[in-house]
């Protein structure tokens, strides 16, 4: 199956600092992945790991400094605004803030039909509003409301309705569950899952919530300092994380069962600054398994059992950190 979205060695560079001592930092430092039609791909990582920047770069909201982005076999990076416009019909994006991503002075009806207006698609706006609101589980009385009259969950549903308005083939969702309480998170995820099955959507989900990933994604990539440290099938990664960072993230995930024995891997120190990337493996400053070799040589990305791992010493299933901190 050919990939719908193909990202190759993507880099995003920011210039920071005052005029004379200006420096370049790489927000995204060479990332490659494919998303097949109908597949859900999750990007996870801490705040500041470059997830949102990557999403904006794919969508063309952020210029890239190297690499390529292809949609359906066609290069879409560096396209002019005009040339990108048809792409925006088939690729839509959802933003982090459910209420803040809706224009405050527009009614819900105007908001969900805005994509039709932008692309000059002639439809019966009223009927279309009704259809879209029903699809996301809101009734048509919401059409006359303003964003500030909506709850977070309702606003998120409006965002989803807007994102699917033009029957896109790919949705990029940046933290679709941010700012929602747990029961509403569940509803939104079920909604996305349901829509994906009914409409055959491919999705790229950006999140730091691993429950979300487990619930919805087929494959995932773990990001650290703008690079993928581990990419692969969700089930496999959840069962046996191979990269120490993935293992640490998974072990930090709140577990609903209090009696379940677990080994929490705590990571010392802060995330290094992008201005001072560590030498060798960039994770070695925080990795419990790190050796001398890790601080010298950067590990290559290795293919192993349909996974891509950037680590000198991939973990065996069930591995414990050298100094295990057992938490009840």
């Amino acid at each position, binding site marked *: 199956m050919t990939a719908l979205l193909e990202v190759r060695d993507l880099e995003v560079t920011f210039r920071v600092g005052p005029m004379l001592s200006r420096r370049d930092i790489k927000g995204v430092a060479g990332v490659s992945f494919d998303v097949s039609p109908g597949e859900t791909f999750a990007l996870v990582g801490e705040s500041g790991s470059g997830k949102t920047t990557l999403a904006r770069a794919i969508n063309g909201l952020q210029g890239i400094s190297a690499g390529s982005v292809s949609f359906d076999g066609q290069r879409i990076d560096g396209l002019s605004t005009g040339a990108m416009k048809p792409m925006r019909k088939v690729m839509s994006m959802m933003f982090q803030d459910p209420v803040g991503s809706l224009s405050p002075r527009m009614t819900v009806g105007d908001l969900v039909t*805005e994509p039709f207006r932008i692309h000059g698609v002639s439809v019966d706006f009223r009927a279309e509003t009704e259809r879209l609101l029903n699809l996301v589980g809101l009734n048509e009385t919401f059409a006359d409301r303003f964003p500030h009259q909506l709850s977070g969950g309702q606003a998120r549903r409006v965002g989803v309705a807007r994102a699917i308005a033009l029957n896109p083939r790919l949705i990029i969702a940046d933290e679709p569950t941010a700012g929602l309480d747990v029961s509403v998170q569940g509803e939104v995820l079920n909604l996305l899952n349901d829509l994906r099955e009914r409409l055959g959507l491919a999705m790229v989900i950006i999140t730091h919530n691993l429950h979300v990933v487990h619930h919805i994604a087929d494959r995932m990539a773990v990001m650290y300092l703008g690079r993928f440290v581990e990419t692969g099938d969700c089930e496999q990664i959840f069962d046996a994380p191979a990269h120490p960072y993935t293992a640490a993230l998974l072990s930090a995930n709140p577990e609903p069962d209090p009696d379940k024995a677990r080994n929490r891997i705590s990571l010392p120190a802060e995330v290094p600054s992008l201005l001072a990337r560590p030498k060798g493996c960039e994770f070695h400053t925080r990795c419990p398994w790190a050796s001398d070799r890790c601080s010298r040589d950067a590990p290559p990305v290795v293919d192993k059992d349909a996974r891509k791992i950037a680590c000198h010493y991939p973990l065996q299933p069930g591995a414990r950190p050298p100094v295990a901190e057992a938490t009840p």
Partner: protein
Amino acid sequence: MSEAVSNPPSMAQRLRLGDIWKATRRVLREPLGAFGLILVLVMIGGAVFADWLTAYEPNKISPRDRFQGPSLDHLLGTDHLGRDLFTRVLHGGRIALWVALFSTAISLSIGIVLGLIAGYGPRWLDNLMLLLFDSIKSFPTVMLALALVTLAGPSLTAVVIVVVLVNVPGYARIIRTQTLALKESEFVTAAQSMGASSARILRVHVMPNVIGPLLILASMDIPVVIAIEAGMSFLGLGVRPPTPSWGAILNDGFTAIRDTPWIAIAGGLPIILTTLGFTFLGETLRDVFDPRLKGRG
């Protein structure tokens, strides 16, 4: 872009009418606001119905009746050419209102467009426009008026141009600042990601969110505009005689203020009452719509 299917009037427009009614009631509850509103309505009513309110014509010279004091026949007396001052004041109100509304509308349109472009456009354009705004603003109003009239001759158009030049930089700056703030907001980014053109983003997504405070500010500027018109007409830079304007009437009475003070009073009183009315109304509106600004300015 074609919008073949017409969209029914949105709830937004209907809501806005309700908002206006609600705001009016709140304005009336404030004594100063009610007073201001009454003054403004009386002034507008006088200007609109000027033809029906008096039996005289504003420019009809009648030498036998010159310099008559206020009486039942001539409520505000007559001037040095025997013209009925009450009639001239009412017709002068038309000029004042017309200049105030017309030039404010033009200033607003130009200011909004320039402010949106400066705030949303590239950095160099923003800097260039700021330089332009500041240069214009650095001219004192009277100098600007004198320079323009020297070039083009005194006329009502000159008054409008002066007012627009004086108002636009301030309006544009306000819009620019707010546009800059909204430029990075998620709903603008969302509109970009949907493929909306810059013009559409500014018109549909940015403008409705930035014009509110400006409209209040503009309503508070109306007395200033009326004063500029009266001032320029007083100095002979505005309307040409015999067109009635409050400034011109004031000037007519100025030379004879010791013997016949009512002429100057007839010209000055409406200026004072109208600017007072608009100021009270504007300040109350500001407090009602934007309580954060209360007690400032």
